[in-house]
């Protein structure tokens, strides 16, 4: 069969029309109002993308175009917020203090009127600045220490409850084929961040806005992390990093620091042969530490439809609790940001999941809003040198305290 040029042109025009009409933009029938663009970072769990498109499609007061954005999402949104062509509504692991001070995000305080107390304080605190709320928390994520019960039992090791016990356990569990502990391929400098400080009873930034680690206890605790490296107890160079539980599941390590999101996969592969722990306490003033973070929904201050965008955020993340529960628990594994929803969630009431929720509630800490990227880089670099190079912790922390103090002075000035 030969295809004439006319047939080919007609087919091309038809395909073009179909393309123009197709694509799941989340637009429902009979929708009035403006067009809103909503950005999400790419979730690893299957079904999440379809779910958020379904929520957007159900909204009647605006056409919502959902964009599912793989890659370096934080950098993408940061760049997009500089222009008016960015999203109207977007998911954000923040916003950062500079984004708030730079007037890049809209004030959403009014959206939470009457329901503010139902949002977990640890999730809401980093989204609050000057008494105003700049993003509505969607879900809470947390990080935990996963361990293989059978491997610990074979080695005669008890689940560690102090940092010293963790160091000893990691050494006892290490042999030629299995390492004791996996804290990420960088030895833990990136993922642990401030967690060891909180475990020592300290903090990244104090309540009155000063560096929270200008204390000999900080150097003592961080120095112990180098012992893990020096003992050769850490798994380094695994094919996937800490956020993926593969190293634990493949038997490369006996203990791994990972996220709550890994729990369903770990349970599926290991059954009951695993447990979870918080980062263990260190020193007399120490306490277990569990970092918590929350992706939130924010509105771009440059949006041409700011009020409509706020209304949509209120509808989805304040009013539609059924969608919020579905989003947190039906695809991945997260703690709903609303206390009332978290209490009702059956999947979080037993086993390791219940332990994780308890740890997050009792020992959870969120990275303070005043902890700026410049301070974080300086701190992480110092931590990396302490862990891997065996650098003197006290000497490494001194310039970091100076850098963080300067950053705190900068952000305290009115813009």
């Amino acid at each position, binding site marked *: 069969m030969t295809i004439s040029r006319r047939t080919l042109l007609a087919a091309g025009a038809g395909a073009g029309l179909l393309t123009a009409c197709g694509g799941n933009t989340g637009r429902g029938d009979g929708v009035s109002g403006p067009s809103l663009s909503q950005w999400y970072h790419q979730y690893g769990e299957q079904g999440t993308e379809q779910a958020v498109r379904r929520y957007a499609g159900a909204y009647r007061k605006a056409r919502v175009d959902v964009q599912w954005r793989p890659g370096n999402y*934080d*950098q993408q949104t*940061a*760049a997009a*917020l*500089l222009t008016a062509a960015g999203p109207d509504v977007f998911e954000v692991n*923040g916003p*950062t203090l*500079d*984004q708030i*001070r*730079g007037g*890049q995000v809209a004030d959403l305080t009014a959206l939470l009127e009457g329901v503010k107390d139902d949002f977990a304080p640890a999730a809401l605190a980093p989204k609050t600045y000057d008494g105003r709320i700049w993003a509505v928390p969607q879900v809470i994520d947390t990080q935990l220490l996963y361990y293989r019960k059978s491997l610990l039992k074979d080695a005669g090791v008890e689940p560690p409850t102090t940092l010293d016990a963790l160091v000893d356990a990691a050494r006892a569990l290490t042999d*030629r*084929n299995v390492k004791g502990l996996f804290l*990420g*391929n*960088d*030895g833990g*400098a*990136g*993922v642990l*961040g401030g967690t060891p400080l909180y475990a020592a009873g300290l903090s990244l930034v104090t309540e009155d806005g000063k560096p929270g680690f200008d204390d000999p206890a900080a150097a003592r605790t961080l120095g112990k992390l180098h012992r893990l490296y020096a003992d050769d107890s850490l*798994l*380094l*160079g*695994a*094919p996937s*990093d800490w*956020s993926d539980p593969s190293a634990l599941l493949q038997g*490369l390590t006996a203990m791994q620091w990972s996220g709550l999101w890994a729990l369903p996969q770990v349970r599926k592969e290991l059954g009951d042969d695993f447990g979870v722990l918080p980062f263990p306490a260190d020193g007399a003033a120490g306490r277990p530490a569990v970092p918590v973070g929350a992706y939130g929904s924010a509105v771009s201050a440059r949006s041409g439809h700011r009020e409509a965008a706020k209304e949509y955020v209120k509808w989805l993340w304040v009013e539609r609790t059924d969608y919020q529960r579905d989003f947190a628990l039906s695809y991945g594994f997260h703690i709903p940001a609303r206390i009332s929803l978290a209490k009702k969630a059956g999947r979080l009431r037993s086993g390791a999941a219940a332990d994780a929720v308890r740890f997050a509630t009792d020992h959870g800490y969120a990275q303070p809003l005043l902890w700026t*990227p*410049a301070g*974080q*880089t*300086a701190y*992480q*670099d110092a931590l*990396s*040198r302490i862990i*891997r*190079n065996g650098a003197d912790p006290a000497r490494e922390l001194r*310039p970091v305290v100076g850098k963080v103090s300067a950053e705190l002075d900068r952000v305290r000035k009115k813009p």
Partner: protein
Amino acid sequence: MRRWRALWFWVFVGPFALGLALFTYVPLLWSVALSFFDAHNTVTPTHFTGLDNYTAMLRDHAFLDSLRTFLVFTAFIVPVTYGCSLSLALMVNRVRRARAFFRSVFFLPAACSYVVAALVWKMSVFSGVRFGLANTVLGWFGAGPVAWLASPDPPWYWLVIVTVRLWLQAGFYMILFLAGLQRIDPALYEAAAVDGARPGWTVLRHITLPQLRATSAAVVLLLVVNAFQAFDEFYNLLSDARGYPPYARPPLVYLYYTALGQGQNLGLGSAGAVILALVVAVVTVGQARWLRLGRTDGDG
């Protein structure tokens, strides 16, 4: 007639000149201007700060460390790549049979992307676990697994970075040297043979290398600029979601995080970019003068 010619010149060249001005020169000048202003989370200059961004950048240990690391990297990778690609060119040039085959074999890696090569190196060849290729080989000799990318002491990560860069680049520069070698007049070698010069080091030193001076200068120039612009393999080998290890952070990566990452300090990032551009310019001009680039033998 001349007017038509001018018109056609601008019809063809105009769009490209406009694109170059809009997307290269304007941002460049804008960036230089921005480096004198406080520009957090904005590309619009706000508060004039003079040289504050420059002094802050020059006092920033992370930036200075990255510059130092890259000066060492450049000082190492440039002669090594030069030596490898020249050796390959000399070998391939001497081969009498299957010359095209050998040229293709050595040139093919140049067609591979840095991202793909870096991931192959990271995940299969130099994976830190016991079943990585390099660790499997070490295991045959009874040695334990080495964390190639996570060990600053000894700095095994350099082995990974240098080998992937050599594998990707050496073939390309080999082709440049081959072109240079084929332009050398055979009569020079014949005359040398008649004068009793033995083939080998003497001929290489007194005929081949001097005749390749122009090619060498171009190759070294490209290598220096490429070394300072290294980003892809460093990013894909060493970065993770939380950032970058301080021991091998390229200046470009640091500036990326400062200006475009969560930092969003575009004034400070611009100052860093200007400093980096000046360092590259000074090194490039220095090596061009050293190699007497652009001069003929008659020039003083």
